[in-house]
C-alpha cells in the first residue's frame, strides 16, 4: 500500500524538533531510521499530517566513553544505527551484550538505517535493545523544553509500545554501565527464521567467580579420561561445578508487554555454587514466575519452555566464556 499524504520537515536541531512537536502535538511524528515508521505508514497504521525527520541530527549519533576510570559509562546516541553498534569496537569491549544482540535485529539492509533510539522509544516487546538495556541496567536520556532528564531502563518501559517518554520529549541517548571485571554477557533468541521477530529471547548478565582450582583440575582430568573433546566437556558437563554467579540479571523479550526480568530465577542462580540441582531449581522458579503472552503460533506453555531452555543455555554460555 501507499502511505497517506503528510508534510515533511527536516529538523535542523533537537530544539527545532521539540518546537515542532510542541506545535503540532499528536499530528506530528518523529522519523529516525524509519524502519518501523515507514512500514506502518505504508500500511496506513499511522496517519500523521507531519513527519519530522530527525535523521540528520548527527549530534545525536555516536558512541563515546565517559567518566573516570573504574566508573565509566558508555553513551550511545539515539540516532546511532544498529550496524554501527554491531561493528563498534567500543561496544564490543564495554557492552558485549549489545554486540551479541545486534545481528539478531532483522537484516543487514534494515540494520543500516534503523536506530537505537527509534527502537527504544517504540518499545516493541519483541525488540532486542529494550531487553538489553534492562539487563545492563542502562539509563535513557530524554530532552524536553525544560532540559534533560534521566530515566532508568527498568522504569522507562511501561507497557506495550508505551514508555516514560512524554509526547513533547526526544529520546537523545542511552547510557550503559561498562562491563565490570568478572562480569559476562550472553544474548540469544529463538526465531523461526533468522531476522524474524523472536518467539522468545534472553539478555543475560552475571558476574562469574572463578571456580575453585580443585574443581577445575578434576574437571580437566575427567574430560581427558573419558576421551571427550575438551571444549565440549567444559561447556556441557564440568564448567558449572563449583562456579558461583552473582549479580545475575535475566531480561526476556517477546514474553510480555515489555522486557521481563526473571528475579526469582536470578536469585536462585546467585544463591550458591552452581550444580545441576541448582540449575533445576532456577528452572522451576523461572517457570513459576513467568506469565508469557501467547502469540498467534505459540502458546504460553511453549514460550515458557523456550524461556527455560534459553536460561539453561545462557548459564552454560556464561560459564564457558
Amino acid at each position, binding site marked *: 500500500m501507499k502511505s497517506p499524504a503528510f508534510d515533511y520537515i527536516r529538523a535542523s536541531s533537537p530544539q527545532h524538533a521539540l518546537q515542532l512537536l510542541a506545535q503540532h502535538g499528536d499530528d506530528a511524528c518523529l522519523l529516525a531510521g524509519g524502519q518501523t515508521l515507514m512500514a506502518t505508514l505504508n500500511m496506513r497504521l499511522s496517519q500523521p499530517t507531519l513527519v519530522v525527520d530527525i535523521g540528520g541530527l548527527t549530534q545525536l549519533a555516536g558512541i563515546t566513553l565517559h567518566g573516570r576510570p573504574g566508573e565509566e559509562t558508555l553513551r550511545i546516541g539515539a540516532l546511532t544505527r544498529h550496524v554501527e553498534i554491531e561493528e563498534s569496537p567500543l561496544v564490543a569491549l564495554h557492552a558485549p551484550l549489545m554486540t551479541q544482540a545486534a545481528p539478531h535485529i532483522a537484516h543487514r539492509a534494515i540494520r*543500516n538505517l534503523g536506530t537505537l533510539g527509534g527502537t527504544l522509544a517504540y518499545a516493541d516487546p519483541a525488540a532486542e535493545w529494550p531487553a538489553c538495556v534492562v539487563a545492563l541496567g542502562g539509563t535513557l536520556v530524554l530532552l524536553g523544553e525544560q532540559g534533560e532528564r534521566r530515566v532508568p531502563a527498568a522504569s522507562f518501559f511501561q507497557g506495550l509500545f508505551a514508555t516514560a517518554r512524554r509526547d513533547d520529549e526526544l529520546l537523545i541517548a542511552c547510557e550503559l554501565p561498562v562491563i565490570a571485571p568478572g562480569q559476562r554477557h550472553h544474548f540469544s533468541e529463538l526465531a523461526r527464521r533468522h531476522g524474524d521477530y523472536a518467539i522468545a529471547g534472553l539478555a543475560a548478565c552475571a558476574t562469574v567467580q572463578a571456580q575453585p582450582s580443585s574443581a577445575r583440575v578434576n574437571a580437566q582430568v575427567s574430560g581427558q579420561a573419558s576421551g571427550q573433546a575438551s571444549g565440549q566437556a567444559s561447556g556441557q558437563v564440568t564448567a558449572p561445578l563449583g562456579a558461583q554467579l552473582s549479580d545475575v540479571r535475566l531480561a526476556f523479550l517477546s514474553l510480555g508487554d515489555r522486557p521481563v526480568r526473571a528475579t526469582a530465577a536470578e536469585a536462585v542462580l546467585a544463591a550458591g555454587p552452581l550444580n545441576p540441582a541448582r540449575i533445576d531449581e532456577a528452572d522451576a522458579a523461572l517457570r513459576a514466575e513467568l506469565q508469557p503472552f501467547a502469540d498467534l503460533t505459540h502458546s504460553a506453555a511453549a514460550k515458557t519452555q523456550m524461556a527455560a531452555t534459553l536460561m539453561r543455555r545462557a548459564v552454560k554460555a556464561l560459564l564457558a566464556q
Partner: protein
Amino acid sequence: MHTPTDIPSTRVSVIVNGQTLVRQVECRKHLVDFLREDCGLKGSHLGCEHGVCGACTVRLDGQIVRGCLVLAVQADGRQVDTVETTTPSPALRALQDAFIEHNALQCGYCTPGMLMAALDLVERRPDASREQVREWMSGNYCRCTGYQSIVDAVCTVLELQKAGGLKAQEARA
C-alpha cells in the same frame, strides 16, 4: 486536527547511479516509487512494501537499504545506486553470470534485490561461509527457487573472488 488540503510535495536532488536527478516529489513517496515512476528505473521491485521481502533493496550512500522503507525526500542530496548502475563492478557482473549459470532465478522478481544484497556481501564479507551467506541473504525472499541455487551462485562468486578471478573478468570486459 490539521489536515493537508492537497498532497504536500517537495523538490529533491538525488544522485542516482552517478547522475544527479532533480524532481518534484510527494513527501509521502518512498524511494522505489521515486526510482520507478520519476526516474524511469524499473529495476528495483516492490513486493511487500513493508520491509519484509527485500525485492526493493538498493544502495543509499553505499549501504544496502530497503527502498520501500526510505522516503524519496530522505534521499535528497544523497547517492542512490540500483541494479541498473551504469558502471557495474566486476563483482556485480560475476553475480549476474553466476545467477544465470546456477538457475538462481525463475520469475526474476526477487533478482534485483538479491543481486544488490549479494553484492554487498561479496564486498563486505569476502570470507563468508555458506552458512553466513544463507544468513545474510535471509532478508530477501524468493518464491521460486528454494534458495539453494541462489546460495550456490553467491558462493561461486565468493570462491572466484578469493581465487582472484574477478579482476580477470574485468580485464576481459
